[in-house]
Each structure stands twice: as structure tokens, then as C-alpha cells.
């Protein structure tokens, strides 16, 4: 699997947004331009048929990566390679676009309330001109509805007639209708109740096995990510802090941020036990801290961390962007309870 060319690759990908005030206001208040570095140079690849997840807190840039991956944003720097082709080039080709689809977080906002389910699901088929005959399209819609666990009879209904979980199934059916190979899922279950979340995660796993799909999965929920991923990237302020095989990450998290994040999650085993909160908050990506962006909250930070930005470097099976790990100082921070329990 390692030898096969990756389905998807991000190379030094960056996306900056201009968040300056209007020109006149800047002139009056003598302010400069302001740039928000939502994604600031990240690289990863996803082999065919596997799932890579990106986790992080709000504002870490994970959703921007999702949008960059399907070309909803263009990169400021770096490139996205889809099946060996640069995305800027692939986007121009309808046949390439067809092969990638996206599932959004909010199934209440991502379905047109005035369209019937059949039209919603068939839209990609029409947009790409995959099937011309109406009957063929109807058959395909019925097949897709069955595939995601809905009834073919549901095709005449409107989105408001469905619950959140059912709507997310409709979104998945729509995404699958153009026979994609690569799916980008941006927090697909975070708007859903846990019992429904389990249904959707199970469905996505089944579909992946049956159709050989490649997933880029974006989530803030580490427990969800553990269930679906082959590899996991932990993002902090537009950069990758750690990138590792899923099991490695949970057994031996290396980056102090990863450890802190794991320690901060409540879980069912925790009854009556204190969790150790990560101090402080995620800083603003407009004015990120110098050096390593995590240094103001990091228990292992020293002078070098304040000055010099760490690059992602191999550390065992993982890739870690941390001076403390590189220098072997990370033993000072204990492994989170979850990792200790798993080991």
C-alpha cells in the first residue's frame, strides 16, 4: 500500500485570508494590512482506500484544508495533488471533478429546502451529464437511497420531512451519485445525536469497504476520529503538530498539544476523576505567537520554542513538529491517562 501512488497529496499547502479593515479606515487609523494565516504550510498524503483525519480545535484551519482539498478555495501557496495531477489543472476537467465530493457539517443548511430529494441526489448526475435518460436517473437515485439506508419512496419528499441523521444520509447519497473515489467529510456527524452519529459512522465505514473510497475526514472529536481513521493529523493554528498512524497516536502521543488534548477530553471512564484542562486558549491566527505557536500554553516550552518554528520531523512512527520531542525533553510531560490505559 505504501508503494502505490497516493490518491491525494497536500504539499506545503497554505491559505491566507486578507482580513484588513476597509482602505479608508486603515488610512485614518494608520493601520497596516492584516492577514489571517488559516493554513500555513502543511503536507500530508492519503493512500487509495484509506482515511486520513485532521483534528483540532475551532480556528485551527481544518475546515479550510477541507475546502482547499476539493478546490472550493485556491491555495495561497503550495499545491494539492489529486491522483497524480495538480488540482488547479484537475479542477478544469469535469471528469476529475466528478471523482471528488464533499459532505458538509450541517445537514440543515447543505440541502436545498425547495428541492425534492430525487432532484438533490440527481444534481451531480445532471451537472456532470452522467446519465441523460430520466428513467436511468430515477433508478440510480433509488439505488443510492437504498445504499444509504433510506427508502426509494423517499425520493418525492422534501428535506424538512427528515430528521438530522436522515438528512445527512441524503447528503451522503448526493455525494456518492457521481461515483466519486475521494470524499472530503467536514465534521459530518457533529450536528447529530450520538446514537445517530453511530449510524452514520457505521454507514460511512461500510461504504468505504464496499466502494473502496478514500476519505479526508475533518473532526474535532478524537473519539470519532479513532473509530474511522488509518492516519491522523493533529492541527494547531494552521500547522500540523503531529501526523501519525491512528493507533500510534493514541498509544504514544508525542506532541505536547496532542497529549494535552487527549487529557482534556471527558470520557466515560472518567466518572469522578478530575481532568486536567489545557491552560489558556487557542491564540488568534491573525497574530500567532512567535516560534512554535503552542509555546504560550506548553509546559515544555523553552527559549528555542519562542524563537524558532519547529518543522514536522520523524519521531518513531510519527511525524512531530516539536523541539522538545526532537531534543528528547518530552519525557517531562506524562502520557495522558487514555494512552496509559490503552498501552
Amino acid at each position, binding site marked *: 500500500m505504501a508503494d502505490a501512488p497516493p490518491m491525494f497529496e497536500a504539499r506545503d499547502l497554505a491559505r491566507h485570508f486578507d482580513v484588513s479593515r476597509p482602505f479608508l479606515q486603515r488610512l485614518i487609523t494608520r493601520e497596516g494590512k492584516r492577514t489571517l494565516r488559516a493554513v500555513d504550510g502543511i503536507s500530508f498524503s492519503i493512500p487509495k482506500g484509506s482515511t486520513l483525519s485532521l483534528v483540532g480545535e475551532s480556528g485551527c484551519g481544518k475546515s479550510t484544508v477541507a475546502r482547499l482539498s476539493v478546490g472550493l478555495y485556491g491555495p495561497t501557496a503550495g499545491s494539492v495533488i489529486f491522483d497524480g495531477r495538480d488540482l488547479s489543472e484537475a479542477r478544469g476537467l469535469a471528469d476529475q471533478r466528478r471523482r471528488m465530493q464533499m459532505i458538509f457539517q450541517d445537514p440543515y443548511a447543505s440541502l436545498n429546502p425547495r428541492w425534492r430529494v430525487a432532484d438533490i441526489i440527481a444534481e451531480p448526475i445532471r451537472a456532470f451529464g452522467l446519465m441523460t435518460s430520466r428513467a436511468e436517473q430515477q433508478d440510480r437515485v433509488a439505488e443510492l437511497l437504498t445504499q444509504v439506508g433510506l427508502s426509494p419512496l423517499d425520493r418525492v419528499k422534501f428535506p424538512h420531512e427528515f430528521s438530522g441523521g436522515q438528512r445527512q444520509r441524503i447528503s451522503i447519497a448526493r455525494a456518492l451519485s457521481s461515483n466519486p473515489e475521494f470524499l472530503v467529510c467536514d465534521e459530518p456527524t457533529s450536528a447529530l445525536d450520538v446514537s445517530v*452519529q453511530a449510524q452514520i459512522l457505521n454507514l460511512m465505514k461500510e461504504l468505504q469497504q464496499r466502494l473502496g473510497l478514500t476519505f479526508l475526514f475533518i473532526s474535532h472529536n*478524537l473519539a470519532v476520529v479513532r473509530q474511522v481513521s488509518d492516519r491522523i493529523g493533529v492541527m494547531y493554528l494552521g500547522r500540523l503538530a503531529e501526523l501519525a498512524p491512528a493507533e500510534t497516536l493514541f498509544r504514544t502521543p508525542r506532541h505536547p498539544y496532542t497529549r494535552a488534548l487527549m487529557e482534556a477530553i471527558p470520557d466515560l471512564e472518567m466518572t469522578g476523576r478530575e481532568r486536567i484542562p489545557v491552560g489558556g486558549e487557542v491564540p488568534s491566527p491573525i497574530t500567532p505567537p512567535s516560534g512554535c505557536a503552542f509555546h504560550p500554553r506548553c509546559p515544555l516550552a523553552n527559549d528555542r520554542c519562542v524563537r524558532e518554528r519547529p518543522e514536522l520531523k520523524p519521531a518513531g512512527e510519527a511525524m512531530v513538529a516539536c523541539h522538545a520531542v526532537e531534543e528528547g525533553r518530552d519525557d517531562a510531560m506524562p502520557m495522558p491517562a*487514555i494512552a496509559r490505559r490503552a498501552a
Partner: protein
Amino acid sequence: MAAPLLQVRNLRVEFPTRRGTLVALDDVSFDISPGEVLGVVGESGAGKSMTGAAIIGLLEPPGRIARGEILFDGKRIDNLRYEQMRRLRGKEIGAIFQDPLTTLNPLYTVGRQLVETITTHLPVNPAEARKRAIGWLEMVGIPAAAQRIDSYPHEFSGGMRQRVVIALALCAEPRLIVADEPTTALDVSIQAQVIALLKTLAREKGTAMMLVTHDMGVIAETADRVAVMYAGRVAEIGPVREVVKHANHPYSVGLMGSIPPLDRRVERLAQIDGSMPRLSAIPQGCAYNPRCPQVFDKCRQLRPDLIDAGTTRAACWLYDTEMARG
């Protein structure tokens, strides 16, 4: 055990509509003692928030309490007039809602809102109130509180804003706090800080708390007891450890099973098939019967009350010892 501070007895909330009356809550009963945290969990639409709203007297019209009673410190509060309830709310019962931005008035500084609340409910002058307001902001962990007190809500980040909301709910020193999804809008690292704060309060000040959330992890580490709600009824209630680890009601079992575990990978998550019924179509008998893997005849006909199920109390015929199963 101290006498309960809050007693909810057979509460029924109805919404009259043109197509008939919807029963949003039915026969909901529980107690909360001083210093105790009761977690209320369930899926959206189960009636968790509705229960909280009924207690603080903020049911959205046309919703109304049709039956049952709510006692605070032994006195009925469900039939109080608006003005009386308003005085109780804030002073005796504090409320924390999910979205900190809609709870705070964007036009007033945080300090003005805190001072107003304190002077309304406590016999102190404005200068003293301001001093206390700063104290509360420090207490909830806002750095440089003496300066930040004159900031407007939009000048705070989400986590900080939620702390302001908590300070606002606490500043009149209520004896009961109704917290409706207080951490749902926050990131995990901030969530942990807020939860730690609420726990400290319950322990140190003896504040009773009703914590409504769908996040079982938060419940597991914060609550003393848990009530699991389904379709407007309490399905199971008991000590947190028992409900989370050894639930008795099949719905609680399904709900706990569907939570993705953090400490291992499972090939397939347990899932509850189907979805919760709409209020307009709650099935006869046990509301959970169409989805229940252990359903039998009686469940389809008769509605179970909370029955002693050993470690917890569950509204499930499986635990009815009177009846031998057919």
C-alpha cells in the same frame, strides 16, 4: 442526606396546537439536593431543555405546565406569578444557556450587566457591587478582570464569554443552577476549564445543579446522578457510575453503547436503529418499544413507570417483578 432543594413531581408540559395537544413532557419526577449535580441526558427533542425551561419558568408559549408541581425549598414555584418568578430567578435560581452570545446584552458592558444583576438581588451599593463583579470574573478565570469588566461581550472570545455568562448566573449567589448545554459551544480544552469551575462551585458553595447536555463524557465526570430522558419521559435515573457503566433501561444501554470509545477502536459501533418519535406520534405503551431489542407484548400496551431496577430506577417492564414474562 439533606432535604432536596428542588423537587419535580409528575411534571407534564403540553403544547396546544391546531392539530391537537402535544405532550412535550409527561410524568417527569426527580429531586436535586444541595451540592448535588444532576445530569440530564438524551437525544435532541427528548425534553431535556424543556424540563430546564419549566423549572426556571421560561416555557415558550403556548407551552404550559398541565399537571404536576415543582417545589423549590419545599415551596411550589410552578404556579408563581411572572413578577414573583422573576425575583426568584436570578436570586435563587441561576440559568446558564448554550449560546453565550444570546444570553448577554451586546449593548451593555459586561460590568454593567453584572452590577445590575447584583444590585437587583442583593442589598449592596453600586460600588460594592462592582467590586463583587470583579471578584466573580476572577473566580471564573478571566485574566485582568479589573480591566476586562468594562469590555463589551463581543470583545471576549467564545470561552471567555461563556465564563462571563457563568459569572452572571452566579453573581446573585443562587442556590440552584440550571445549566443547559453550558459547554456545547466550546472547544474541549475550554470545556474542561468550565466544567472544573462548575464542579468546584457545587462542592464548595453547596450549589445544586441541573446539568442538561447530550455529551455523556461531560456528565460522566461532573454529575452525581443522571436522568436519561426519552420522548419527554424519564427512562432511567440513578447514580452516574451505574447509569453510564451498567445501565438497566435498554434505551440507556443503546445510548451508552453508541458513544465512540476513546480508548480503543471498534469495527462497528453499536447503534440504535430508527429515530426518536415525533411528539405528535409517540407510540402507545413504552415510547421506546418500536426500537427496543427486548420488546414484548406488555410494552406495546402499557406505559411503564419508574421501577426499582436494583442499582437505578428504570421505566421498563423488564424490571417489573410482579409480572412473569410470557
